[in-house]
């Protein structure tokens, strides 16, 4: 009998070793994968015990903070709708967006344990607060831009073209991040998309603001100079179709510089046709189309069809920013910033610094170039073209006395609705400090609707 008792012991021992192997698998090998499953609410419960870090503007205004209610912390946004496209929201039910998502590790303080005290506190289950995030956003400019766009749908981005630092980011309509849990149903069903950040994730037909790209391509490929003279009829026929000027205007004959200032489609259609699809598309891609811009918030890429997918007529329309060309306001701002910054596009950013609750800096923005789509010479030429737009062309509404302003208007036709009004511009032209891109959905003429908004923002920013 004893031999059999020994065997029974062996079988039982083997079974318990299997238990231990299985436990090792669950608690060690597969642990992180299982813990991360969305059905597991433990990470959320743990987070609610942590005082999440604040989000603060460049001028020290608190945009997101945590308040203790009973045992847990609740997120609170003192500015509500005004900055929700930047902060995003933080919800235990519906997840998180915006900086709450992209800087989650810093805000929740889960990045690293920097001091032995932190470690001991954590072992004891004590409250180790998250890190505070300081932005480059200036709330005076943000408020001005928000007020100017008003009830209209659209987007505004303001940045420093020399560094890539954002000064303001407005997307309308927006939402109140304090009420996301309460209003979730209506927010996600709203056809106006209040939770879409139009600056970084909205694609619009850029219209004539895109002529900055076409002009760059033409100048760098030496097919034109600013003084090249073109016929500028009301309509030109290309490949069985036609390109027309806005409101069917006939300009007779004029130089390339005048055509840019007056935004003459029939001239740019000819320029596009002689450039050809491949060169236009290459230049456009050099400005970041087809890539998601690196940024502190989630972005989408701007689009232009491949050259092989466009016939001559579509290339001609693409050259005036119509057809299947689709750009985010962020990308249009970056195109303008290349002109302002000697041909270089700086990587855009809006998080200046991340500090621990104790004051230690754990992250600091480091301005660096992202793209070099233009030669410095070309950028100077295009800058002079853009100054003429504001001085004597379609962008006169953006003129500021005593300050040289460069800009380009756009009136993007979108079928039967009123066109989108665009303006991309910067100032002072000789030493650019501020760049503004504005799009007002169905806002009409860029020069009438968007240029005055950009002007007031530049005035505010240069104060």
């Amino acid at each position: 009998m004893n031999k059999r008792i020994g065997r029974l012991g062996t079988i039982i021992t083997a079974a318990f070793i299997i238990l231990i192997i299985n436990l090792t698998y669950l608690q060690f090998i597969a642990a992180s994968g299982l813990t991360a499953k969305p059905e597991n609410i433990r990470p959320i419960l743990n987070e609610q015990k942590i005082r999440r870090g604040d989000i603060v503007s460049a001028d020290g205004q608190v945009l997101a903070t945590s308040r203790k209610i009973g045992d847990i912390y609740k997120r609170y946004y003192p500015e509500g709708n005004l900055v929700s496209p930047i902060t995003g929201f933080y919800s235990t039910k519906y997840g998180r967006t915006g900086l709450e998502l992209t800087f989650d590790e810093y805000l929740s303080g889960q990045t690293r344990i920097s001091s032995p005290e932190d470690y001991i506190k954590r072992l004891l289950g004590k409250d180790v607060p998250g890190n505070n995030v300081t932005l480059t956003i200036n709330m005076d400019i943000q408020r001005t831009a928000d007020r100017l766009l008003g009830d209209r749908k659209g987007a505004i981005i303001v940045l420093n073209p020399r560094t890539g630092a954002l000064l303001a980011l407005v997307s309308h309509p927006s939402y109140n991040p304090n009420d996301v849990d309460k209003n979730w149903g209506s927010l996600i069903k709203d056809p106006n998309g209040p939770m879409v950040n139009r600056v970084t994730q909205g694609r619009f037909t850029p219209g004539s603001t895109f002529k900055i790209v076409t002009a760059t391509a033409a100048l760098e490929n030496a097919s034109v100079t600013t003084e090249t003279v073109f016929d500028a009829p009301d309509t030109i026929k290309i490949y069985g179709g036609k390109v027309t000027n806005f409101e069917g205007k006939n300009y007779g004959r004029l130089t390339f510089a005048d055509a840019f200032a007056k935004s003459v489609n029939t001239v740019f259609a000819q320029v596009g046709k002689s450039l050809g699809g491949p060169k236009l598309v290459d230049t456009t891609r050099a400005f970041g189309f087809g890539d998601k811009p690196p940024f502190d918030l989630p972005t989408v890429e701007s689009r232009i069809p491949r050259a092989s997918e466009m016939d001559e007529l579509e290339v001609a329309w693409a050259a005036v920013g119509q057809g299947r060309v689709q750009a985010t306001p962020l990308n249009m701002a970056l195109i303008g910033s290349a002109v302002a910054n000697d041909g270089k596009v700086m990587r855009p950013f809006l998080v200046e610094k991340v500090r621990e609750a104790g004051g230690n800096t754990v992250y600091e923005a480091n301005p660096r170039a992202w793209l070099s789509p233009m030669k410095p010479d070309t950028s100077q030429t295009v800058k002079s073209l853009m100054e003429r737009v504001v001085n004597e062309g379609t962008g006169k509404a953006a003129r500021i006395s005593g300050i040289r302003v460069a800009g380009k208007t756009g009136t993007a036709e979108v079928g039967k609705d009123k066109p989108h009004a665009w303006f991309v511009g910067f100032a002072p032209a000789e030493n650019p400090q501020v760049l503004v891109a504005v799009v007002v959905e169905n806002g009409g003429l860029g020069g009438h609707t968007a240029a005055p908004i950009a002007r007031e923002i530049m005035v505010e920013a240069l104060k």
Partner: protein
Amino acid sequence: MIALSRRNIELLLLFFVSISIFVSFFLVSQTTGQPAENALRIAGFLSSMFIVLHIANRHFIREADPALLPLSAFLSGLGLVMIWRLKPDLAIAQAIWVLAGTAAILVVLSLLKRYQWLKDYKYTWAIAGIILLFAPAFIGVERGGAKLWLNFGPVSFQPAEMAKILFVLFLAAYLEEKRELLSISTKRVFGFWLPELKHLGPLIVMWLISLVILVLERDLGTSLLFFGLFLSMLYVATGRPIYVTFGTLLFIAGATACYFAFSHVQARVDIWLDPWIDPSGKGYQIIQSIFAIASGGLTGAGLGLGHPTLIPAVQTDFIFSSIAEELGLLGSVAVVLSFLLFILRGLKIALLAKDDFGRLVAVGLASVFALQSFSIIGGTTKLIPLTGVTLPYMSYGGSSILMNFILLALLLVISAKGASQVE
């Protein structure tokens, strides 16, 4: 080197167990904000219970195994810590059951120092066991889909727990008497040598009982437990693997039939195969258990710092998951090894027992303990389909605590006898 006597080893081990119980209760009071005096009171109460048992061992059974009491003290102490941490209100009730268990051990030690007489009443145990097993099916209360409880006023009792020990006594006595007969093959059936059919009777009766439990009481766990117990005792007694093979085949046949006949058996197996088909419904409990265990990681969240209360019924069937979450892999493996050590000590007691009845009782008790702890730990970790049995010494539940204390007392008594005759 000083050779410690068995009782002094026990005392030393109990001392360490006591310290860990005090520290654990104190930590829980700090992390959950419950009064530290309560922590010290419960820890002090538990420790004094074990000291009482230690003194009783010194008095009644000097030569008994020195590891069993400290192991069960450790497991029941950790169990009570977790219950206090999970549902503080239930901890007092559980402590009272520990008191009852202690009293039961004292009774067993004083009455059963000579346990041989138990085998003279084997059919009494068998009949009592059957009555206890099936009583709930007729007059019981249903909880969580299984009819396992009897209510006596405020106290509810799970008679299957008692029945386990009675069946061990019956089977040990029966097999001691018949094992020679059962080992001799007289008939050839389908190429196998089999003993007389009349001797096979109990095997078939046990098989039927197991299936009836499954059908009438909808309790897969208890059913498997009884059958496994029976097979392991039969194997050890007769040394004929054919019984094990044949019995297993019979049970598989029965279980397969049940799988197709009963939707609740089917549901259990389906959820085991893939709980993600219904993560917020039928799969919720096991998925929450897996999350709890996984989130424990290597060192655990810390006592009182995890979220084990997300698991429904965590204080009974899923107490192991809460330990794995808060004490990590280190803690969960420590618990598994403690169970294994307890079982192996039980088998060692069987090896050293001088009489076959004592030997078979020890084998049976160790097997019950092994089957039960394996099936619930395996179930909560999704190694095997979940069966609702309690984790010995740790789960909340009066009948479980009481019966496992009696099981401990029986093993101690047998070990004392074996040792005294050897030395």
